[in-house]
């Protein structure tokens, strides 16, 4: 019981601090009224929604606190991947040679946030769309399918993204 209350307090503080950071980012002013209003608002919203913002079973700080350096690296890596697959996609639109197929595979990343980011990155890359995400099982529509082996398909679709995500979140 005591551990649960401590965990709840930690989640509440993290939610409130994130809310306040976003408030500072949006208002971009350091007046007294703005700071007090932001603090009261973020505390109120955190008290209402901390259970939704960070689920109870995500019982590790590394599950939702990102590694900032690797997050920055991932941002630029993602830009590179988007442009790389956009050029492939451009050629496919012109020639019309596509081989679409639905593939299923599982991911190694463990936290909900990391899985969400992985699925979103797969959708963001032109050529692959995530259709469904159940726990660690991803259903992906892949436009340039060249294999029937589902594990090989998974390695091609997510193989280069997954190590970067694993370094940001656990």
């Amino acid at each position, binding site marked *: 019981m005591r551990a649960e209350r401590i965990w709840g307090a930690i989640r509440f503080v993290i939610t409130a601090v994130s809310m306040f950071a976003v408030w500072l*980012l949006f208002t*971009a002013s350091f007046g007294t009224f703005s700071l007090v209003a932001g603090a009261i608002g973020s505390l109120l919203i955190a008290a209402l929604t901390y259970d939704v913002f960070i689920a109870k079973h995500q019982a590790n700080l590394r599950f939702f606190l990102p590694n900032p350096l690797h997050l920055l690296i991932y941002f630029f890596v*993602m*830009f590179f991947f*988007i*442009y790389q697959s*956009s050029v492939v*996609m*451009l050629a*496919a*639109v*012109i020639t*019309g040679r*596509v*081989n*679409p*197929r*639905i593939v299923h595979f599982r991911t190694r990343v463990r936290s909900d946030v990391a899985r969400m980011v992985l*699925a*979103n*990155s797969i*959708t*963001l890359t*032109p*050529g*692959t*769309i*995530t*259709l*469904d995400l159940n726990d660690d099982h991803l*259903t992906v*529509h892949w*436009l340039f399918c060249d294999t029937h082996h589902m594990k090989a398909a998974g390695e091609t679709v997510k193989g280069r993204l997954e190590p970067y995500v694993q370094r940001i979140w656990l």
Partner: protein
Amino acid sequence: MIMIREILALIAFSAAVIFGTAGLAGLFRFSDPYTRLQAGSLCGTTAVLSIFIGALLLSPTAAVSARIVIITLFFLISSPTGSHIVARFAWNIGVPHHDPKQKRTPVSRKKDTPS
């Protein structure tokens, strides 16, 4: 310095035009919802991202570029979520994906609906 920035921004905007046109062409060329969404992601992700990069290169002050970075971040979160929702709905109601080997695409993936 200004000249180099303008040339780089011009390259980024040209890339946006090319990718946007290709995405629009793919939207009409392809045959089923999933493949059309793929072409739409070319239009909706890469073209918009190129425009943001060009705007970032042309931004006059640090405050403006910080806002552009924030807009880009929110765009990177929201844009794939939208196309994922459309694709997930199509998958759940049983729309079959286009197979180039089959001559005629069936109406539904599910057994109980007439094809």
